[in-house]
């Protein structure tokens, strides 16, 4: 009975999304309905997190099919913590949406797609079955295809083609990889795969499959050299949709990497994990350079997704419990701060009437609150104390030092400086400077934009200042990931 908890974060948004389609034209109703349902879902997830924290993982064998045969849903601390973060981002986005989207876009099933996206993301976090992970990837991608074309402008359609193509291709690669894996180990249940891979000590063919899976998830998570598709499609749609994409989609890829390379393919670390550390270093360098290369403020933020993913991959690559703790802390921090930044630059671009940095100046005279919120976000992103980005980076680099990857740790520090430069440039050029008299300030809109962002930044500050409260639990997840046996036993119950 209590195991049914695991399915709630998937079922609630799914039903909510389907019902939202029934009255999609009644905007007032559907807005309040979506906001309330998102809050309810968050409350439920918070309860599940609390429950899992107290009693350990909740495993649901759907349809009462026993573990290795049916599809299992595994709500352990890692997945539930990420689902909760997803829902926090969702709250900010659903309250921001009415201010940012025009009514036509909202009517065209925005809220349905939004809920389906949450369904897909939560499902991908919770599922304990590799093929089911593919299915949930498709659910969230389908919803994202719907969102990215919303509005149907020239640029948007052009960029969404590229987005759909790259994702379709990597999904097909994913299916092929699962077929390979199935032919070798004869199962798609993650716990059982882990057990069997452990028994045969990861032979050459399994390492090859591991690298193929890495390419699949690397494409979704935007790692070097597979990130080229990411920045432009992400800035094409409305800011609230960009925020959902930037905060959630690549992070599902990162989560899959964490899961697969902490649970299943851990026996040939000289090949796989060593390779990840260097890919992480390259991702850090190229992402930071990309962020400096442009004057389009939206593109700056979109490029900043890439070095963040590099940091998390570094945590996976060093393979010690400090590394995992840091990766998870940074992952949670990054989901929140990327959403906040996308919402902020969306607001700035809307209020300044352009997203070209060279054409804006002195915005802080008109919008002081937005300016300071942006200032704080820039600090969180770059990892300056006392904010959450600092704690995450600190633990990550500590993990890298423990594993004697000093060069990569230095690259991480240097790229943090470049990241700080890339975002503070927006603050200096866009907010400082002479007052632009030609702008007629829209205070009401600015306040509407600022509230959801402030809500997100509250969590960033909380995760930073209150690190002592959260650190033990997240450290617990790090240690849990280092012992795959825990996961296997909780699913297969031997």
């Amino acid at each position, binding site marked *: 009975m209590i195991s049914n908890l695991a399915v709630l974060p998937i079922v609630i948004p799914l039903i909510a999304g389907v019902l939202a389609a029934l009255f999609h034209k009644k905007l007032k109703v559907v807005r309040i309905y979506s906001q309330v349902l998102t809050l309810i879902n968050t409350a439920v997830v918070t309860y599940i997190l609390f429950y899992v924290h107290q009693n350990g993982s909740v495993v649901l064998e759907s349809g009462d099919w026993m573990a290795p045969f049916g599809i299992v849903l595994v709500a352990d601390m890692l997945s539930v913590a990420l689902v909760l973060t997803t829902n926090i981002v969702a709250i900010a986005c659903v309250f921001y949406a009415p201010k940012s989207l025009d009514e036509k876009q909202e009517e065209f099933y925005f809220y349905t797609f939004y809920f389906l996206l949450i369904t897909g993301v939560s499902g991908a976090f919770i599922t304990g079955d590799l*093929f089911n992970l*593919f*299915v949930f990837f*498709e659910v969230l991608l*389908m919803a994202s*295809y719907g969102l990215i*074309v919303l509005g*149907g*402008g*020239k*640029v948007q*359609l*052009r*960029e*969404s*083609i590229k987005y*759909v*193509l790259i994702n*379709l*291709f990597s*999904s*097909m*690669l994913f*299916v*092929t990889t*699962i*077929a*390979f894996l*199935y*032919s070798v180990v004869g199962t*798609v249940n993650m716990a059982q795969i882990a057990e069997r891979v452990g028994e045969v000590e990861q032979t050459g063919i399994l390492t090859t499959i591991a690298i193929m899976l890495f390419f699949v998830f690397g494409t979704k998570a935007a790692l070097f050299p597979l990130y080229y598709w990411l920045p*432009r499609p992400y800035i094409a749609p409305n800011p609230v949709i960009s925020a959902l994409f930037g905060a959630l989609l690549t992070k599902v890829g990162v989560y899959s990497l964490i899961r697969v390379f902490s649970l299943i393919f851990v026996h040939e670390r000289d090949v796989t994990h060593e390779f990840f550390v260097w890919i992480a270093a390259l991702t850090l360098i190229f992402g930071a350079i990309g962020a400096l290369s*442009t*004057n*389009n403020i939206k*593109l700056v933020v979109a490029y900043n997704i890439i070095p963040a993913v590099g940091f998390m991959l570094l945590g996976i690559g060093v393979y010690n419990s400090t590394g995992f703790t840091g990766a998870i802390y940074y992952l949670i921090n990054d989901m929140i701060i990327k959403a906040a930044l996308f919402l902020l630059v969306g607001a700035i671009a809307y209020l300044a009437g352009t*997203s*070209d940095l060279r054409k804006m100046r002195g915005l802080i005279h008109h919008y002081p609150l937005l300016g300071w919120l942006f200032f704080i976000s820039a600090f969180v992103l770059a990892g300056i104390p006392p904010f959450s980005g600092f704690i995450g980076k600190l633990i990550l680099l500590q993990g890298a030092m423990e594993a004697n990857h000093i060069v990569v740790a230095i690259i991480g520090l240097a790229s943090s400086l470049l990241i700080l430069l890339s975002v503070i440039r927006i603050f200096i050029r866009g907010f400082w400077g002479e007052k632009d008299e030609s702008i007629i300030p829209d205070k009401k809109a600015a306040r509407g934009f600022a509230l959801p962002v402030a809500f997100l930044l509250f969590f960033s500050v909380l995760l930073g200042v209150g690190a002592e409260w959260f650190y033990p639990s997240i450290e617990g997840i790090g240690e849990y990931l280092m012992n795959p046996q825990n996961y296997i036993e909780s699913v297969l119950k031997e």
Partner: protein
Amino acid sequence: MEIIMSILAGVLFTTGVYNLLQKQMLRIIIGTALISHGAHLFILTMGELKRGAPPILEDGIENYADPLPQALILTSIVISFGVTSLLLVLAYRASKENGTDNMDKLRGSEND
């Protein structure tokens, strides 16, 4: 039999990738369709091909086909069918709006 099927899947993949690298949008979509066919065929092959055996596992039955790959393929076919149809509509609208279906001309500039 498995070897022949694997080679066929490989041929589908190569032709698919070749088409994917073309400039014309419709060719690209045909490329993705070929790749998904290759992937589906590959799942079937990986579950071992057997003729004349039912996908039932009961006590006493020795000869049975593996039901799992069939379930996987069915799911995967439905998904790729949906995505392909969406992609066709998307390509049609994008080429109408932008006035070209040549991917080289759909690059875009920094500030649009």
